[in-house]
């Protein structure tokens, strides 16, 4: 790749190497478990072995007698402090430590604080809990049955396992479009329960300063500011006495958005002992108790004319939220943004209904590398379009081309009300088909089929809605989804940007430095990015739903432009010109028409701090702050093509190629963008082929370790083939759209479409993820299995 760009001439965008790598490459990162505080104690959680049971008694005497144990915390103790329950992000409550019942396997029952890690674990074995087992419901489709066990008897008035009904779109118009259609295709499908499984599990170090009363929590959180507010509300602590630090984070993918019981236990632990308390969960705890994703049972219907014009789409969804509704999304949308399920097509009408239910499974669900349930919506529409193509005898690429939104239709309001900002969809699909060599692939498939070989080609086209979001439309528990930025310029022109979002590997320290450098004519090396510490950064809602670049990135641009305008006044005083007579060119302020007369940001910054006489009302210094409230979501999109070879005898799927063309608007650092896409593709392939959290009939979690919950390795992943188109976002100040999750959203269905395409000669019409050899083989036998249940 080329040398670093000259900021004065080219601006600072480009494949700049990452600043954060210097510490990670040397093993000098600071992850939560790396933090060591003087006198620090270690916590461990006792978890329920049963999925549903009444707690008869908890006997902690032997644990408390352990010589290295300093405290044992139970639900009863928390109840006395009114901390036994905490609010979830979906206005439900969740038990911090169980008091009455346990409602899923792995639920938190007691917390031990000891002098070292091993003793804390030893003491867990000394706690005696007597349970009275209760009947269990693990299958969402049985959760509303007459006589199903009532899981949430703690909620006043709750008589069954129903959580919500929610609908979007125009039912009457959709019915009319279906009635007029030549062709209607329907399909039931499951987007099974998955888990984000970042390589670093969740954990926290909590420290209460007994003198000042200040609580510091270093935690694996994607949303430090929102967590601070939640801790204040839950624990009744004054918010200015709480500092949340999100240090280096080993991947998030949505898993680190919620507040978990373990964090609160660490907080209570430090309050009780007066010493810092570290709690870090193990992998089984992470997989069994922290929030899962998906678990959507979907019924799709698509209506079209005989000649392949798609008219309307309908969906009915049963959403499994586990034992507590801990779903993380803007509060007014209980099914997240699922209703963007009309996808990338020009439809007349659409309607969807979602019903949420409780089951005896871990609570959730989070947006696993997707913007709030868009992954489920994209999966549904892209499966339905492929099924329609098969029904009509049309090539799936041809059917998509005929129905994709056209560039002149933007801004486009979809039938469920989302306003897509910009796009040239047919071009993205064409670029992907060219990269893939689509006609040749189809010819090769013909030849192989004639030889009895099963090669499949799968397409997907997705539209995401990211960068949540406009305050007028959305909030989380009353917190508007705006983000702050604060920019200081030191006298020598060095800049320090503080942002409210937080990196878990996305490279913010580099990308955001490039944004500021680009706006101010600096080198990215001159810009320090501060993030992840609530005492050092302005308020904002954090990093998830691909919102960093769309929201915080925009805030960074706006604050840099404020600084630039302040610099203009100072430069005018320096040049003895009127501010209106200056222009910003080549990274400096210069007199219009006289490029010799110019001042760089460093020169201006020094002058702004000097004795230079400034006009009345000008404060001096260049620092500025802002809050960015996005006017709309941004709508990145892409076209993906997957090529597989399937062995129908064993059901084994070999991924041969994966072509991904993404349009995320303007790319600030293309190297980082491509890295994000690579990671998302691996995630999507994992979901399509192997990742599933399965439960048996007693509610035992069978996906509780990396031996059972399979993740893709370097051997399952092909060499990704990427392409791009660039359609700037019209309402973002630099036209960027966000990309972190596009590939996870768009890729699983391309794999499924490819596998079904390969096996169509054998009569296969659909198979649910994950497409393990066993499930492909069973689907081929006409006896599809539910991979999420081992009954």
């Amino acid at each position, binding site marked *: *790749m080329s040398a670093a760009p000259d900021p004065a001439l080219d601006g600072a965008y480009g494949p700049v*190497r*990452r600043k*954060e*790598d*210097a*510490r*990670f*490459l*040397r*093993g*000098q*990162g*600071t*992850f939560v*478990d*790396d933090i*060591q505080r003087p006198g620090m104690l270690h916590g461990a959680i006792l978890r329920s072995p049963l999925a549903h049971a009444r707690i008869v008694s908890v006997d902690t005497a032997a644990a408390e007698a352990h010589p290295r144990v300093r405290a044992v915390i139970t639900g009863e103790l928390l109840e006395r402090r009114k901390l036994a329950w905490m609010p979830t992000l979906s206005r439900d409550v969740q038990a911090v430590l169980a008091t009455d019942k346990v409602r899923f396997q792995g639920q938190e029952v007691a917390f031990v604080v000891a002098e070292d*890690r*091993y003793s804390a674990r030893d003491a867990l074995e000394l706690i005696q809990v007597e349970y009275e087992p209760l009947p269990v419901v693990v299958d969402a489709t049985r959760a509303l049955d007459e006589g199903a066990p009532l899981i949430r008897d703690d909620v006043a008035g709750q008589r069954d396992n129903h959580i919500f009904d929610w609908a979007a779109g125009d039912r009457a118009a959709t019915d009319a479009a279906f009635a007029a259609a030549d062709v209607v295709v329907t399909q039931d499908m499951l987007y099974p329960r998955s888990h984000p*499984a*970042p*390589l*670093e*599990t969740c954990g926290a170090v909590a420290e209460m300063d007994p003198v000042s009363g200040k609580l510091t929590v270093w935690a694996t959180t994607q949303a430090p500011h929102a967590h601070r507010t939640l801790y204040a509300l839950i624990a009744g602590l004054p918010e200015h006495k709480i500092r949340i630090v999100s240090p*280096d*984070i*080993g*991947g998030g*993918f949505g898993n680190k958005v919620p507040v978990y019981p373990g964090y609160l236990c660490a907080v209570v632990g430090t309050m009780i002992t007066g010493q810092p308390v570290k709690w870090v969960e*193990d*992998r*089984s705890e992470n997989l069994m108790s922290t929030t899962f994703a998906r678990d959507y049972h979907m019924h799709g219907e698509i209506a079209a004319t005989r000649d392949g014009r798609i008219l309307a789409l309908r969906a009915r969804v049963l959403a499994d939220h586990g034992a507590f509704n801990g779903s993380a999304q803007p509060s007014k949308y209980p099914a997240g943004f699922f209703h963007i399920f009309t996808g990338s097509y020009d439809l007349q009408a659409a309607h969807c209904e979602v019903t949420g239910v409780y089951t005896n499974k871990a609570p959730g669900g989070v947006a696993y590398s997707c913007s709030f349930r868009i992954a489920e919506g994209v999966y549904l529409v892209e499966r339905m379009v492929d099924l329609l193509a098969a029904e009509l005898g049309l090539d799936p690429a041809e059917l998509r081309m005929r129905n994709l939104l056209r560039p002149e239709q933007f801004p486009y309001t979809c039938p469920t009300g989302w306003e897509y900002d910009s796009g040239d969809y047919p071009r993205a699909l064409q670029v992907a088909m060219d990269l893939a060599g689509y006609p040749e692939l189809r010819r090769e498939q013909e030849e192989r089929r004639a030889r009895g070989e099963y090669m499949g080609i799968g397409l997907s086209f997705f539209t995401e809605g990211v960068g949540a979001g406009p305050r007028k439309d959305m909030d989380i528990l009353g917190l508007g989804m705006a983000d702050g930025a604060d920019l200081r310029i030191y006298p020598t022109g060095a800049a320090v940007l503080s942002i409210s979002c937080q990196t*878990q*590997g*996305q*490279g913010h320290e580099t990308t955001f430095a490039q944004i500021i450098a680009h706006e101010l004519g600096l080198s990215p090396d001159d810009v320090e990015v501060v993030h992840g510490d609530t005492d050092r950064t302005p308020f904002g809602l954090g990093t998830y739903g691909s919102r960093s670049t769309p929201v915080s990135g925009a805030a960074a641009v706006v604050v840099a432009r404020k600084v630039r305008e302040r610099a203009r006044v100072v430069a005018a005083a320096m040049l003895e010109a009127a501010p209106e007579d200056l222009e910003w060119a080549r990274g400096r302020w210069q007199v219009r028409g006289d490029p010799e007369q110019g001042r760089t940001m460093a020169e201006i910054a020094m002058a702004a701090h000097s004795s230079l006489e400034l006009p009345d009302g000008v404060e001096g210094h260049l620092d500025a702050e802002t809050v960015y409230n996005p006017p709309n979501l941004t709508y990145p999109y892409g076209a993906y093509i997957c090529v597989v070879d399937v062995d129908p005898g064993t059901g084994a799927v070999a991924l041969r190629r994966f072509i991904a063309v993404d349009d995320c608007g303007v790319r600030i650092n293309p*190297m*980082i963008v*491509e*890295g*994000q*896409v*690579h*990671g*998302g*593709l*691996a*995630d999507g392939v994992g979901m399509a082929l192997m990742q599933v959290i399965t439960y048996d009939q007693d509610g035992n979690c069978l996906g509780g*370790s*990396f*031996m059972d919950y399979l*993740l893709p*390795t*370097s*051997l399952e*992943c092909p*060499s*990704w083939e990427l392409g791009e188109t660039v359609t700037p976002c019209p309402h973002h100040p630099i036209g960027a759209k966000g990309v972190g999750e596009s590939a996870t959203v768009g890729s699983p269905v391309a794999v499924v479409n490819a596998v079904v395409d390969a096996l169509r000669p054998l009569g296969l019409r659909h198979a649910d993820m994950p497409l393990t050899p066993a499930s492909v083989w069973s689907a081929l036998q006409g006896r599809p299995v539910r991979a999420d249940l081992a009954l």
Partner: protein
Amino acid sequence: MQITMTVNGVSHTRDVEARLLLIHFLRDELRLTGSHWGCDTSNCGACVVWLDETPVKSCTVLAAMADGRRVRTVEDLARGGRLDPVQQGFAECHGLQCGFCTPGMMMTARWLLDHHPDPSVAEIREALSGQLCRCTGYENIVRSVRWASEHEAAQPAGGDGGTGRQAGER
């Protein structure tokens, strides 16, 4: 029990519990926190270090088993203030995102290049297949190792510099 091991060239003697895992010895006792811990089942490889000359998953080795032996961790990759070519490759090719898997990946990669200076892409993928990365989709990790291989071949660090370089081979 008392154990003595040489970690990154420095000898350490400690009294430890017999059950103490090597990863916890390194991280908690010696405060070498570059090696990470990511699973309970020896699947992820975030904890890979060298025991004598061989990469091991240090979550699956007792500290006592390293008694009298040499351990090398990521903190020892850079020498004399110079990054190892593997580290340079990861920086150049964006082989890391969150950085959690990176130390383990680099320790395996260093071993691979010491024994196979010019590995093919397939050989690199095979060598890293016991380790998980949740961020990069592996492609840039593979490119990072190739980068290191090619740059070591161009600037031999003492050996014959390697032969039969196949730049850009997939």
